[in-house]
């Protein structure tokens, strides 16, 4: 190795050092700390009862119906909203892609749901569905207290999520659409393929990496859903999610030991999702990612 290379290597590390240090301090350390705390009985309301209890916290969580219920809810919300977003994202992407006039305006407007604060979006929809102040009941001619029953509350939460994140999905898909060569479509059209056939046979396969990346991003993002549920139901009516459970255990109950164990389990959940995606679609994913 010559002098220049070793200089370059040192500079590379030097330039990365601040960012890496910051990331280690604010993420790696707290995660390891959570791992450590999860082995203790450590409740801030009983500071003097701190004691090492091994895996008891995990046993207690995994045998609790509350955990499985929250996990189930989170998965339901994730699966339903991500699949609907994908379904709606395609037409949205096509519209944005094909827009001839107002291109700027259309694209800018679709970015608004994405850029708006989640809390504000959740409140807007909550008020819209409110039986006394909202317009939805008047519009649909219903008399429903939407957020007071499990399934209708889920409906409102999912609607909010979809409204907020479909544009993001659509943008990623649109970026994939630009990769589809125009002459390929023309050739298929000449060969007599109809729009649907062109879409399924040509566009989707080429876009597959982009679709998978978008779905992975959104799945992991939906799995940590917190703001919308917190604002709209606070987990009542059986809509609690794992993030809400973590918040309640940490911040409401101040039970750091148990909360840390919940954290670790959520973390493992995220790892499992990522591994499933990478195992399932590994090759397509790396093609799509920007890891050269």
């Amino acid at each position, binding site marked *: 190795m010559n002098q220049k290379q070793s200089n370059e290597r040192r500079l590379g590390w030097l330039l990365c050092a601040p960012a890496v240090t910051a990331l280690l301090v604010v993420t790696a350390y707290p995660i390891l700390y959570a791992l450590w705390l999860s082995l203790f009985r450590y409740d801030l309301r009983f500071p003097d009862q701190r004691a090492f209890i091994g895996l008891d916290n995990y046993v207690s969580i995994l045998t609790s119906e509350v955990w499985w219920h929250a996990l189930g809810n989170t998965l339901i919300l994730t699966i339903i909203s991500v699949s609907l977003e994908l379904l709606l994202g395609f037409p*949205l992407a096509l519209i944005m892609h094909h827009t001839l006039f107002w291109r700027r305006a259309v694209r800018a*407007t679709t970015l608004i749901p994405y850029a708006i604060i989640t809390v504000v979006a959740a409140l*807007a929809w909550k008020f819209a569905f409110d039986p006394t102040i909202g317009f939805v009941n008047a519009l649909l001619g219903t008399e429903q207290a939407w957020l007071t029953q499990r399934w209708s509350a889920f409906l409102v939460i999912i609607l909010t999520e979809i409204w907020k994140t479909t544009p993001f999905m659509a943008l990623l898909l649109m970026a994939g659409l630009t990769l589809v060569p125009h002459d390929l479509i023309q050739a298929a059209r000449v060969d007599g393929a109809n729009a649907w056939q062109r879409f399924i046979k040509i566009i989707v396969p080429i876009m597959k990496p982009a679709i998978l990346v978008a779905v992975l991003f959104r799945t992991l993002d939906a799995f940590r859903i917190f703001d919308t549920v917190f604002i709209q139901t606070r987990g009542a009516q059986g809509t609690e999610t794992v993030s809400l459970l973590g918040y309640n255990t940490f911040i409401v109950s101040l039970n750091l030991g148990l909360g840390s164990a919940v*954290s670790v389990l959520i973390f493992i959940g995220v790892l499992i999702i990522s591994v499933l995606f990478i195992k399932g679609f590994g090759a397509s994913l790396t093609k799509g990612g920007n890891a050269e």
Partner: protein
Amino acid sequence: MMMRNDLMGRIFWGMGNLIVMAYALLPVLWIVSLSLKQSSHLNDQRFFPQTISFENYRIIFSDMQFPAALWNSIGIAVISTLLAVTLGMFAAYAIVRLEFPGRRLILAGALATAMFPSVVIIGPIFNMWRTVGLFDTWLGLILPYMTFALPLAIWILSAFFREMPWDLDKAARVDGATPLQAFIWVIVPLAAPAVFTAAILVFIFAWNDFLFAISLTSTNNARTVPAVIAFFTGSSRFELPTGLIAAASVVITVPVMIIVLIFQRLIVAGLTSGAVKG
């Protein structure tokens, strides 16, 4: 025949545009309309206000809490953005331009960090902050914001940097500039749009945060607007101050809407750069 097809296509996509715009704007218009309703008309179940009143805006700005929260939100989001983009810029440059072991690991690590749920670390951070006295301070929020801000900055910047004309950099180095000088005098001006894009997106994310804000702050010292809105007390014991919440929501939505409308091209490029090559 061709003409008619074309016209049909135009109408079809035009309708699509209208639907898309209505879809995106509906809740925004709704919250604006709520904020302008008189409190006695709040229950009229109409979409648009019958009479327009700015009373809600007057109240939130004459209250102590909201202006303080707005100041906190702005200050914390701006500082987080500056910090993340500065550190991210150095790292992204090194990752793209320099040959050194571990650079792929850094990029992958950053992506992994961006994807894990914040709730995982609020407990440990709360416990750390209460011992070192960072609870309810600006720094106490800025540091945890790095968990999503830094990966986002590194990821976007490295994607942009990969596409930049680096010949200029090489030319400068041939002329005898050190890598550092080449970085400061040649690359920084070239990279400005990329940096700006990263900054916008990081700002939007920091502006949006709710979980850290409600967990790690408690007073006007550091409470940001999303947290304040969620816990608005209102004057009477049982009524939810809907009009005030709506007005406060509009106030914090306006800045991001302006940013989005002006910089939509950059934002689209920034968002898609991380996911799809090109």
